């Protein structure tokens, strides 16, 4: 549409991710490195899955719409599975790297915990995934026109931005839950992450009925947020204490040496 829409959608899609990066990651170079590495792993998984999809499209019948749609669904499922595979691969790599880092560092303890690595890698996946989802759409939003001349609904840009926002946060939560599940060998949690990722991706096939895809996605987002909070060490009690500002007493009571 115009510059206003471009900035609006950019802020919607990347606002939380940028604020998370600014406040929690930007100051620690180690976290930045692991974020970028995570983004790279996601990119490689996308490259592989798009290669497979591209080849299948070339050999398929380009004129058959149902076949193309079927191929698209196949491509999406394959991409999700590859992303989760690469997330697992990143986990294994980080495990190995941690031992090495421990050997190298002069302190006795690890410079970065597995939990933080889970969060950072999830956010890295999220950044890259969000970028690839929405940058194309943002560049088209700069022009003077809006979607609709062929009958598509008008709220394409803003819906895409909200979807991207959800996906970025979801990747972060999935990362936390996934790594926790791998640490504790809880394979059912792993399966749940994969299945929820599949559900969210396949919900986009309901578009252009944006309510049908956005609302369930945000429901799943809130469920995953709660789960990730619990995995990361939070509890309802902490949350209540925090919100009612009784934290000073709490800290004093639970004083720990630094």
């Amino acid at each position: 549409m115009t510059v206003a829409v471009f900035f609006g959608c950019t802020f919607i899609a990347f606002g939380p991710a940028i604020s998370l990066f600014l406040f929690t990651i930007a100051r620690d170079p180690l976290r930045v490195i692991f974020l970028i590495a995570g983004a790279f792993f996601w990119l490689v998984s996308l490259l592989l899955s798009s290669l497979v999809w591209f080849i299948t499209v070339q050999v398929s019948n380009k004129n058959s719409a149902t076949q193309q749609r079927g191929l698209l669904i196949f491509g999406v499922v394959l991409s999700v599975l590859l992303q989760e595979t690469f997330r697992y691969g990143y986990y294994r790599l980080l495990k190995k790297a941690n031992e090495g880092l421990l050997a190298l560092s002069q302190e006795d303890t690890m410079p970065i915990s597995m939990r933080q690595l889970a969060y950072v890698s999830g956010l890295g996946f999220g950044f890259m995934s969000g970028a690839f989802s929405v940058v194309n759409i943002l560049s088209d939003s700069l022009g003077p026109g809006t979607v609709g001349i062929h009958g598509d609904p008008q709220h394409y840009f803003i819906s895409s931005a909200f979807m991207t926002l959800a996906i970025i946060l979801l990747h972060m939560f999935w990362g936390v839950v996934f790594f926790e599940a791998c640490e504790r060998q809880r394979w059912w949690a792993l399966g749940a992450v994969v299945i929820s990722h599949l559900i969210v991706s396949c919900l986009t096939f309901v578009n252009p009925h944006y309510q049908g895809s956005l609302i369930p996605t945000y429901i799943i987002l809130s469920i995953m947020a709660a789960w990730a909070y619990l995995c990361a060490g939070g509890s309802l009690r902490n949350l209540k204490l925090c919100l009612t500002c009784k934290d000073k007493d709490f800290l004093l009571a639970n004083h720990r040496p630094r």
Partner: protein
Amino acid sequence: MRKMEKLISINCVKLLITALFYTCVSCSSVEQKIYVELNDTVPCVRLLNATHQIGCQSSMSGDTGVLHVLESESDLDWILNTGPHPPYMVIMETAFFSRSVMLRMKNSSRVAGVAVIVSRTGLAENFSPHTTCPNQNTGVYSAKYGPELANCNVTTWNPLGNGLSYEDFAFPVFALKDENQTQVIRKCYEDHNLRLNGSAPQYPLCAMQLFSHMHAVTDTVTCMRRTDLQNRFSINPEILCDPLNDYNVWASTRPLNNSAKGQTTNESFVIAATRLDGRSFFWQEAPAAEGTVSGIVTLLAAVQALYPVIQLAPPPRNIFFAFFQGEAFDYIGSSKMVYDMERKEFVIDLNNVHSMLEIGQVGLRNGRDLWMHSDPISRMNSSSVEEEVSDMMKNMHSIAAGLNVSLDEPPASQPLPPSSFQRFLRARQIPGLVLADHRTSFVNRYYESMYDDAENLNVSYPPNLSPEEKLVYETEAAKSLAEVATLVARSLYKQAGGDDSNLNNITADPKIVAQLLYGFVIQKNNSWFQSLLPPDLTKKGILSSGPPQFYIGLGPRTYGPVHSVTLFVQHIMANLTGTVTNLTETQCQKPDDISTENKDLYAYFWVSGSTAVNSSGPFCVRAPVRLSKAMSPAFERQEYGSQDYSTWTESRWKSIRARVFLVASRELEMLTLGVGVAVLLLSLLVTYFLSSKAELLFSSARETPTTTY
């Protein structure tokens, strides 16, 4: 073994990469959801001369406006005054494309651009965007020569002209010629922009964006100065405008030595001339049927009528046939030829010119008279000129009587109409006549407009004829032009001093005239044109569908440096005046080595020949037909502000295109921005809160995260 495996894997990767590169990448599918690109746009471009710029211009990133169809006066009021969503992109019905409406649009700030629907329904009785006095400053009549006749004081040649082509518009004006495209635009308008019960339409609204940004501004002097600066100081010079140029076609009955400049012998020539070009408001749209094609067809038919007799009984004087290009733009072709003749850089010079007969607009005769226009000033000043001109008129009268064509003279004090002959008179007072179908003002009601087409020339065929049948069908217009051609041919023969007894053998063949007319106003992609052109030209697509366009334009073009019409005329002349040789293709292209052929006297053409099944294929034709450069002398002399010669240039541009899409309301855009800023601020706040309380929130971890905060 290892090396083999490595090689195989490397080859596989290479194969994959090349396969990926060869498959084409489709454009962004989001863009396809938003925009409908309009193909085949017909823009109006900017032309400049020594003092002014004319035409249309869009801003650099295109002009966008909400569509509104202009069908009635209330629509005009809505666009200019009351409509709530300015600026508007006006879709103008044919009836409203007039000077008053366009000037009102020009003065309004609420018009982003105009797209004119080109059709014959609703077309006014007359429409001529040219000026009322064509080429008034570069003709022969000026303050020094016949001042009372200058500037159309005595006769307004084009009284129906509204001068739209010579106005400068700050918004783009496009023509919608394709009916399907117009339908797409109308449908979008009807779906989104219609006013229900007098209330304004709701967003989202259908809008159109037109791109036609022109690089040149102000006038030719400025543009050429900037181009010279670029050429001199820039590593990557960007040329802003180009002079209009092409080639004239000339031929003579007795071959002339092309390499000799300035005729040394005392040969005397009769020049028979006509113009090759036309124009209209829009770029490269100039069917010019009555304005130009009538003259071309008549002269070509006259050539065809003359040639057999000239081979048998050559007249004492040489006849020089000339087709001048660029006459619509201050006589580019004829001024260049006269300039070369004056400086003795042309094959003949002005001393050799005995007289001149020019063929103007002769198509709308309709059984009426033909008129012989002459210049009163030269007739008054010189008795020899008066004698010669009277002689010419007498000869033509007697020939016309024999042909049953009524010929007459306009009032003696009337000046010459705009014609190439005026440029010759500027250099030397030679006797000459201009043949036309109008006594005073033009009878062509669509002079130099898009509507001067076959229908204006009354060229119509009975229904259910195949293209091949239409090619040879002799319409009334063809028969009428054939009569004029016979008159011209016989007059030229008599003027060249030929014997009266041979006159009756000179007759134009109506079939040739019919073929010429079909090729030049209906369909250029026909079997006759195909047989006359070289095979490589037809392969390059010079014979596309539809009639040829006569706008001079600039070289080079996709099929070569010469304009398609110039090529057609050149090859038709070669066919009519040439002889078949049995040279091979390589010999035809380089006949220097062959003793019997003379490259100085003749030009050699490799033509396709008939496309019939039992034809022999391409062959070589030798003909005394040449091209001479038609670029205004002002550019040769680098006098870009010249008042004597044509200084017309055409601006350059990067892209000309149009697209249709929906626009959303400003409120929705601001709302999106507002929501985005709110989300960003909210997330900043929440994240700050979370990160500052992180120790507390995530404290019930089993492993103690001793981290560096």
